[in-house]
């Protein structure tokens, strides 16, 4: 069966290649000026099943960017959207289809880091540039020189928020608190600890909690008795909000610096006033005073009836980065697109100024936010 599929895929791709070669021959060698660069870009996202919310935001963001790019006329992009259902094997099949039969010039996606771990090597081996917009795990772009991402990992976001908080409040002594039975909160804690040591902060205590705990008073009483200047807390927002509330109630009023898990309007909804003084870093801030952001938010809201989230914004910028690189490459060629993408520096998108580093990973300044008066605001 597997072999049959491969054989069919092989035949199909040969046929396509022939058709393409034919088309290539028929086309005049030099492209007349003013003619847009035509490119077929594949998208792999979770369209159905659990996690479909992410896929929806991502494809919405990409489609919005495509319409804008095509209207400008320098580049004409045709999207091929495939569903991965959050499954590795389905994501791989989708990638093979896009690479071999659809002959896309590049791929945006897949949604999860897990999926990227199987799709990335395939695209890399086929020489197809691939860009993850939500894959934040470690080692993603190290898969190979065709693999990119524009999703900021926590290992960049947390040092930014801690750095700013330390400077502003002159923090010397800190207490760390984290959920020790969750991979995500644990890795956030590792980054917090590393950053604290780098900044030579005095770590007074490290406290842990477990999922589903409803009473954090023992840990918080201990933290409060040591009188830290700030608490660095790696938690998901459900637990984080309860922790904040109980901490404020027992009179622990120092600033809290949280990881990406804390970065949700839900924190304010659950913890109310107790959320004041929470500091987080985020790649996306929808209320930024930037005409580009305002236009994007307004357009997105008009088209889809809701505000864009981080995933929509990252996907939107990803297609723009691709379009920009295609324009520079001058032709829809995988190799030239890769080089142009890798050379992306200081691209101004809705996320802010964005560059790829030598390893095709994200270089950008995250926005640091603080909760004041029940709202996330820019922290300066």
């Amino acid at each position, binding site marked *: 069966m597997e072999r049959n599929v491969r054989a069919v895929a092989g035949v199909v791709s040969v046929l396509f290649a022939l058709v393409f070669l034919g088309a290539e021959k028929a086309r005049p060698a030099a492209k007349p000026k003013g003619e847009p660069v035509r490119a077929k870009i594949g998208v792999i996202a979770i369209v159905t099943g659990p996690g479909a919310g992410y896929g929806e935001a991502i494809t919405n963001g990409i489609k919005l960017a495509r319409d804008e790019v095509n209207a400008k006329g320098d580049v004409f992009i045709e999207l091929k959207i495939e569903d991965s259902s959050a499954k590795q094997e389905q994501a791989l099949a989708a990638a093979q289809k896009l690479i071999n039969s659809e002959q896309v010039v590049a791929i945006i996606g897949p949604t999860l880091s897990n999926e990227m771990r199987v799709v990335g090597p395939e695209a890399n081996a086929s020489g197809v540039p691939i860009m993850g917009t939500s894959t934040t795990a470690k080692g993603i772009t190290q898969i190979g020189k065709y693999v990119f991402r524009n999703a900021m990992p926590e290992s960049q976001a947390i040092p930014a928020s801690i750095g700013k908080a330390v400077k502003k409040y002159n923090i010397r002594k800190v207490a760390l608190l984290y959920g*020790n039975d969750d991979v995500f909160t644990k890795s956030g804690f590792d980054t917090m600890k590393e950053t604290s040591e780098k900044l030579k902060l005095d770590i007074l205590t490290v*406290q*842990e*909690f*477990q999922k*589903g*705990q*409803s*009473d954090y*008073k*023992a*840990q918080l*009483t*201990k933290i409060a*008795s040591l009188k830290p200047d700030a608490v660095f807390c790696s938690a998901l927002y*459900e637990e984080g*909000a*309860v922790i904040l*509330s*109980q901490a404020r*109630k*027992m*009179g622990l009023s120092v600033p809290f610096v949280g990881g990406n898990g804390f970065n949700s309007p*839900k924190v304010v909804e*659950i913890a*109310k006033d107790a959320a004041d003084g929470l500091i987080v870093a985020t790649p996306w801030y929808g209320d930024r005073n930037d005409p580009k952001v305002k236009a994007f938010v307004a357009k997105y809201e008009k088209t889809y009836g809701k505000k864009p989230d981080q995933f929509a914004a990252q996907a939107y910028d990803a297609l723009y980065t691709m379009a920009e690189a295609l324009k520079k490459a001058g032709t829809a060629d995988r190799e030239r697109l890769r080089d142009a993408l890798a050379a992306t520096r200081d691209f101004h998108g809705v996320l802010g100024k964005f560059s790829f580093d030598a390893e095709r990973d994200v270089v950008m300044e995250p926005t640091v936010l603080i909760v004041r008066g029940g709202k996330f605001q820019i922290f300066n």
Partner: protein
Amino acid sequence: MFLEQLINGVTLGSIYAIVALGYTLVFGVLDIINMAHGEIFMFGAFVGMLLVSKAGAPLPVAFLGAIVVTGAMGLLLERFALRPLRARPGASHLASLISTIGVSILLENVAHQIFGAGNHLFETPFAEIRFQVGSVTVYLVQLVILLISLALMAGLSLWLSRTRSGKALRATAENLETAGLLGVDTNRMITATVVIASAMGGVAGVLVGMAFNYINNQIGLSMGLKGLAIIIFGGMGSVYGAMAGGLILGLSETFVVAYGSSGYRDAIAFVTIIVILLIKPQGLFGQTLPEARR
């Protein structure tokens, strides 16, 4: 810090104790472990939350509402999940355990449907009342929780040992058939027991909401497991055992965090239980069961 942690531990322990009392009462009479008790307790918390935070009702109304709803749930539980099994000769001892597990899963999912998965704020001005003793801040809620748990324990043990209906209950617990022959309405006694135990769960639910400010549909599971561990530890069916066990677990959990490592909180607390059980297998206040009970 010691005093503050002591208060934290006693508060947590008192809540554990009230949950455990509900288990122990049903076990003492019916010889079954009511796995749905944790979820009934969770519903009590939600009813209290709806009355206090959403409807703005005063606290006594919240307690009353929680008691009524959870009591009714106990009635239904007994009528539909326990009695049909009791009426069947030859039904396995484990059948009722399984049926209460079924009820607990059902209730958890119903709560998920109605209330969603997230945390709900339990907001009451009463929870803000505090006073200063030396350098220690004490919340009135913490005192109230301790008092309610002590009162429930004393009330239960008085009822069981001194009153006529308590005597009937103990007779039912001793031997269902003989008690029936002696004129005790055993079905009524059992129903009453399950209803009272469930209502106590409801009270505990409201107290948890007041103490921790937040409730979600998972608290039944975590509190329920602790309650189960406590009745085994304190001695199956013993009222004092439930109280002592609850306080010991609450205090040890708190002090492990205060003077040890918070990562081992549950591990150390439960290792303590295992060690005590190895020394005293029938639990702290447990007696070897009379042969007639088996």
